[in-house]
């Protein structure tokens, strides 16, 4: 890569930062990535790993749903190595669930999500651990990913295309010349040393910490960190993702993760994503609701309890405690607010990370005068292990 | 403790001494090395002793008298214990390589140590009191 190629500094190695770094590196931009901890140690690491078919959002948030099914198919092509593509079931155990089915099927059809109706018996043939009172189910192309390795796959490819990734490197301040962001002052957490990294454009991909980074440039980003609890139980009771066939609610997803299952999630707004206190009643709720879908959960051994902070894009008039906010993403080009050289990408979910990367890279490349278009939808990623070959 | 990648040879030679109290496998490994050292030391001592035959019958008989004394007999018992353990543990390791007993590894170690103890006790009785 030429030394005079335009440069970008990406802050954050969650799925968003990793996808942005990959897209920019693929277009020939000189990319530096900084991350204050281990790769994916923010929100992305802690999600339950559900690769969304979009079924969950089809009725209430069709914009998100369409994004999901499109991106799910793309990820299945570019990174099949880090995905379990066993499908998912939306399961009805009550009459109320059953009444939801028609709306659900219509919405899936409208969003382009393949959906297959199953009887209760057929559902239990596929997944014997389901509640014996299953009335019906709908099969959709959900999948499971492993958050760390998904990020590593993007980063390994970016690295092969010249990107340099610095974990354990914390942004302490942004460098401004007038109203242009020119770089960042970072602290190497190993040695405590401060140094400057300069770049033509700085991308803020820090999820629920986005407002903290943006504030360093005097900017306000409407990110509402909203925590959700996940509970891991020992025992792989299902191979498919199991969802409740109803409007999204707490504890309505069961995701297999190796020899455990993870039940999620709930929702409560928090002020500090660095230290989240988990309300014990949320934990009990997960076992309870998860047990409605897969009864073995109720008697399984508790293996882990953890919380992730979703970076939801806030609207000033939202009163739903986060549950009703759209799960779509938004790219804030701060040049529109008078601060050049700085872009924030927030919201979204890991399933749509590649699309978030594309939207962000498009904005960044426009500023950099890079005319390459996005090829990430059709470029297979390298093995995540290549990240460690250097 | 964390170590840099290539510690020196002297350091590396002590790695079997880093205790893993709760791992029966470590006990077997450490005892195997320890008894192995005893056996090597004994073999060398044995050659030295045999070379004393060159010194003539009277000196040899004196040496044998020394070897019949109680401290040396106790040493014999310890030596036999070392031989028994080292041999039985060696058989256990061969069995593991064959794929036998890999599921209940701890049981194998306990069996070897237990059996070694019993056989050494019998040998000890025979040497000291019979």
């Amino acid at each position, binding site marked *: 890569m030429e030394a005079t190629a335009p440069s970008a500094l990406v802050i954050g190695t969650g799925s968003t930062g990793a996808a942005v770094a990959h897209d920019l590196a693929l277009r020939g931009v000189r990319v530096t990535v900084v991350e204050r901890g281990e790769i994916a140690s923010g929100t992305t690491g*802690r999600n339950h790993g559900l690769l969304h078919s979009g079924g969950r959002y089809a009725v209430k948030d069709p914009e998100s749903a369409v994004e999901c099914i499109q991106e799910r198919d793309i990820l299945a092509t570019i990174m099949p190595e880090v*995905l379990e593509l066993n499908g998912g079931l939306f399961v009805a155990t009550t009459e109320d669930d059953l009444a939801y089915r028609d709306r659900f099927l219509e919405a899936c059809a409208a969003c382009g999500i393949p959906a297959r109706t199953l009887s209760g018996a057929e559902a239990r043939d596929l997944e014997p651990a389901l509640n014996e009172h299953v009335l019906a189910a709908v099969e959709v192309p959900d999948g499971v990913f492993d958050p760390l390795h998904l990020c590593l796959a993007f980063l390994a490819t970016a690295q092969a295309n010249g990107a340099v990734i610095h974990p354990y490197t914390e942004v302490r301040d942004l460098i401004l010349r007038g109203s242009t962001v020119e770089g960042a002052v970072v602290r190497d957490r190993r040695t405590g040393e401060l140094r400057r990294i300069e770049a033509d454009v700085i991308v803020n991909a820090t999820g629920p910490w986005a407002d903290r980074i943006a504030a360093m440039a005097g900017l306000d980003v409407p990110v509402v960190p909203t925590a959700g609890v996940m509970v891991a139980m020992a025992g792989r009771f299902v191979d498919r993702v199991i969802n409740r066939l109803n409007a999204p609610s707490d504890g309505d997803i069961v995701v297999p993760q190796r020899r455990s299952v993870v039940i999620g999630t709930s929702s409560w707004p928090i002020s500090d994503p660095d230290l989240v206190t988990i309300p014990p009643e949320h934990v009990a709720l997960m076992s309870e609701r998860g047990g409605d879908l897969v009864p073995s959960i109720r008697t399984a051994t508790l293996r882990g309890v953890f919380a992730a902070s979703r970076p939801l894009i806030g609207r000033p008039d939202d009163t739903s405690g986060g549950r009703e906010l759209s799960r779509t993403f938004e790219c804030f080009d701060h040049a529109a607010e008078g601060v050049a050289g700085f872009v924030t990408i927030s919201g979204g979910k890991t399933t749509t990370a590649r699309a978030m990367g594309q939207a962000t890279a498009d904005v960044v490349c426009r500023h950099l005068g890079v005319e390459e278009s996005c090829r990430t939808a059709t470029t297979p990623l390298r093995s995540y292990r290549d990240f460690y070959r250097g | *403790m964390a170590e840099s990648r290539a510690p020196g040879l002297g350091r590396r030679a002590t790695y079997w001494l880093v205790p893993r109290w709760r791992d029966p496998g470590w006990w077997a490994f450490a005892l195997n090395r320890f008894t192995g050292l005893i056996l090597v030391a004994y073999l060398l001592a044995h050659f030295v002793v045999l070379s004393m035959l060159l010194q003539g019958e009277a000196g040899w008989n004196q040496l044998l008298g020394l070897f019949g004394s109680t401290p040396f007999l106790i040493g014999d018992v310890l030596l036999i214990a070392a031989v028994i353990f080292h041999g039985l543990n060696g058989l256990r390791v061969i069995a593991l390589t064959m794929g036998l007993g890999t599921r209940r590894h701890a049981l194998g170690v306990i069996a070897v140590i237990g059996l070694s103890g019993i056989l050494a006790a019998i040998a000890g009785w025979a040497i000291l009191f019979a």
Partner: protein
Amino acid sequence: MAETTITLRVWRQAHDSAQGHFETLEVTTDPARDYVLDLVERAWADRDRTLVFRHACHHASCGTCALLVDGRERLPCVTRVEEVWDGRGSLTLEPLRNATLVADLAIDPATMLGRMAQLPLPYVRTVEAAVRGASGVADADVGTAERFEDCLECLACVSACPVAGADPDYLGPAVLAAAHRAVEEPRNGSAGRILDLVDTDHGVWQCRSIWACSAVCPSNVDPAARIMNLRRRLWGRRPAEAEGVAHG
């Protein structure tokens, strides 16, 4: 047990070649509710933001948080405090052994995982799906499901292995177990090449059957048994090869 205070003895070391020392940090805990990783995070958030440690998933899927708790390899994200602390004395936290240190409790997995990268290993295995009719009769049409490999690449096994400490070139239990998986379920016909790679003095033959690796593995990999299995496969191979040489 209700909320109480626990004393953590945390290893601090600026980088791989620096001198290290133990630092004492006190945090509050509910031992029945908290996981050891929660304590580390609390110590970082409330007491000392310079503490460097690895974590990502907090549910035994990424393997990054592995460290020594009172001298034994564990995944602190799924280790409840009450499992390792009886309410008295301190809890000692140290980084894994036999790895390059980044700082404090964080190790750099690049050496071992770089070795894994040289083997053609799939991350997803194919298993028979458990398909039974609702009546309990096995269905003849058994489908297949995909599953991630059990190994989290947490390197607890490498830390536990005295041989890995003594021989920096030893491939180590993690790499050998992964190699065995690739031989067990070969894709692209690569089993022969993998057997060649592990058939070295620093490969399967360096193992001393200590079994500490299998004892500490948090994810059912059983590296020790897999290493023994690789040896048996290699024995079977050699006479056949020798014959090949004799007949030209």
